[in-house]
């Protein structure tokens, strides 16, 4: 019985893990290129959720239509924040970047709250489900994870097969060296920041396809924290590392939830979240470069 439950949950975990992975790639990309931790990561995911909500409720489209819209919105936000704010903070001390990214997050939350209100919302999108003996999987979840994998693959191809992608990798390795080799580093900074934010906002769409309820301006905080754990797990500077770490995280999270739920007298959901952080500490103690990191 419990094994069936566990197996069923692990399938969900694997699917959710793909979305987690995609949602963390942006954080890793920003850290890799700009050496900035985006403490306002979650609110960008929230923006993606609201883009979906707006597309579904106002224009009446299916949620996947929101994916390109989210990319456009995200990249626009990325370029806007880069040229107004982040550009001035590239070599700045750490507290300024932390504070500024946090303030950007608050700004996004408040603007969304001001336009959409603070209540919890959700939407309905029924496209059938896969019925297995151990569990039932809505097709929306399958689409969300397949979509995430496709986007991650596209990013991989962009990184490895195009000239600009190669330039981005060069900047991640050594920005001064890249500058010497004739890479326009400032443009790479802007482009990667915009793409990273675009990815993050887009992952918000997939997340709402996965969990179509509970959309509200403050939903992002928990994803910021999960993204931190996943990013460290994946080595912090590597977007693909982040993707695979997302898979591992999804599996552990859903698996642990089932096991904690067996213990009487505890709140399994909170314990699962807590476990994620103790995992993080263990990792930081043993191998701070991440499970999938270099060296």
């Amino acid at each position, binding site marked *: 019985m419990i094994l069936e439950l566990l197996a069923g949950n692990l399938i969900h975990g694997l699917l959710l893990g793909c979305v987690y992975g995609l949602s963390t790639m942006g954080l890793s990309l920003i*850290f890799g290129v700009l*050496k900035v*931790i985006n*403490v306002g990561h979650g609110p960008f995911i929230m923006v993606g959720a609201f883009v979906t909500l707006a597309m579904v409720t106002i224009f009446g489209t299916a949620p996947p239509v929101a994916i390109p819209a989210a990319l456009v919105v995200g990249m626009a936000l990325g370029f806007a924040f880069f040229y107004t*704010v982040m550009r*001035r*903070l590239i070599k*700045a*001390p*750490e*507290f*300024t970047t*932390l*504070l*500024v990214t*946090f*303030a*950007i997050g*608050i*700004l996004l*939350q*408040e*603007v969304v709250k*001001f336009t959409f209100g603070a209540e919890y919302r959700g939407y309905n999108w029924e496209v059938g489900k896969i019925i297995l003996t151990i569990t039932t999987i809505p097709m929306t979840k399958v689409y969300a994870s397949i979509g995430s994998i496709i986007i991650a693959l596209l990013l991989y191809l962009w990184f490895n097969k195009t000239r600009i992608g190669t330039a981005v990798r060069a900047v991640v390795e050594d920005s001064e060296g890249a500058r010497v080799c004739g890479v326009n580093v400032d443009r790479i900074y802007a482009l990667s920041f915009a793409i990273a934010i675009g990815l993050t906002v887009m992952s918000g769409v997939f997340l709402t396809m996965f969990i179509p309820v509970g959309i509200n301006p403050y939903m992002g905080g928990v994803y910021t*924290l999960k993204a*931190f*754990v996943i*990013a*460290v797990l994946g080595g*912090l500077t590597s977007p693909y590392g982040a993707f695979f770490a997302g898979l591992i995280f999804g599996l552990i999270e859903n698996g642990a939830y089932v096991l*904690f739920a067996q213990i009487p*007298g*505890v*709140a*399994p*959901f*909170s*314990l*699962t*979240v*807590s476990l*994620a*952080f*103790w995992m*993080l*500490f263990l990792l*930081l*103690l043993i191998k*701070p470069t991440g499970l999938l990191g270099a060296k």
Partner: protein
Amino acid sequence: MKINIAKYYPLIPVYAVYLTMFLVGFFVPGLWQLVALLAFYCALGQSWNIFMGMTGYVDFGYVTFIALGTYGMALGITYFSQFPGLGIAIIFIGLLLALFLSTLSAILEAGIALRLRGAYFAIACIGINEGLRHLIEGAKIWGGSEGMLYWKELTEVFGTETAIQLTTLWADIAVFIIAAMAAFINVYYMRSKIGYALTAIREDEDAAKVMGIDTTKYKTIAFLTSGWLGALVGAMAWGLKLTHVFPADVFVIHYTVECIVIVVLGGIGTLLGPLVGGLIYGLSKYWLAIILPGFQLLIFAPIIICIIIAFPEGVIGVVKRRVKGTRLERYII
């Protein structure tokens, strides 16, 4: 041992401001709450400054200390109120528990996080904060997410009259005392070997290590001091004053960010900075809440971004440059 009084001159303006605040709050009716709020922000700023201002490490999980301090006071009052005859001692037991819990968490953080730098340090600190919060909620420790309410216990021990006095007056006075202590420790560290070691760490940790500075030792000293003061502020300003504690209310990163904003506004690593920053931040937050309720954050966020980009050295940083070479110089650090 000859004590060099001159090195404590910078405390004069700080204590003058605290005294003025205290007198204004005490004698002008209706202002006590505002003054108490300002004292809270100043005390937090001063406490936070001891570690972060001097070492350059950004402890984004600083609120853990404040939260555990609150829990210490809550535990002290809840459990020790059962013993008759302890009386006022339960408050001191609460403070001791606050110090004890914050020491434990500081050891944990020092073990995990202080070995790390930069991004990893910030992430580890946030992680410890969230990990503790969800552990308390998940394992239902100390009431779990239902938290603890202990107004009843407090009144049973002291009677309603004294309990009201304790929560509305003495808790705030204690915050003033902690703020004064924090300012003193700030100056003491700045003007002693510890301060020089910490400055060396901030400028270049590897070089400091090569020069023979025991970086781990000095970082831990500053970290513990800063954490203890934070815990005391939490115990008094939240624990004793509010007489309730919920994990979702106290382990909130926003408060760390407030500390950072206060210190950055005033000037990082300066003595007067957290005081000036606390006053500016507290007053503007108070007025914004009155003029435009619900919009404080919407207005604050862009202002913070602009200030950090335009004046990274803060008010006191600018003033310090102005008074350089004048007789005011020795009073302002």
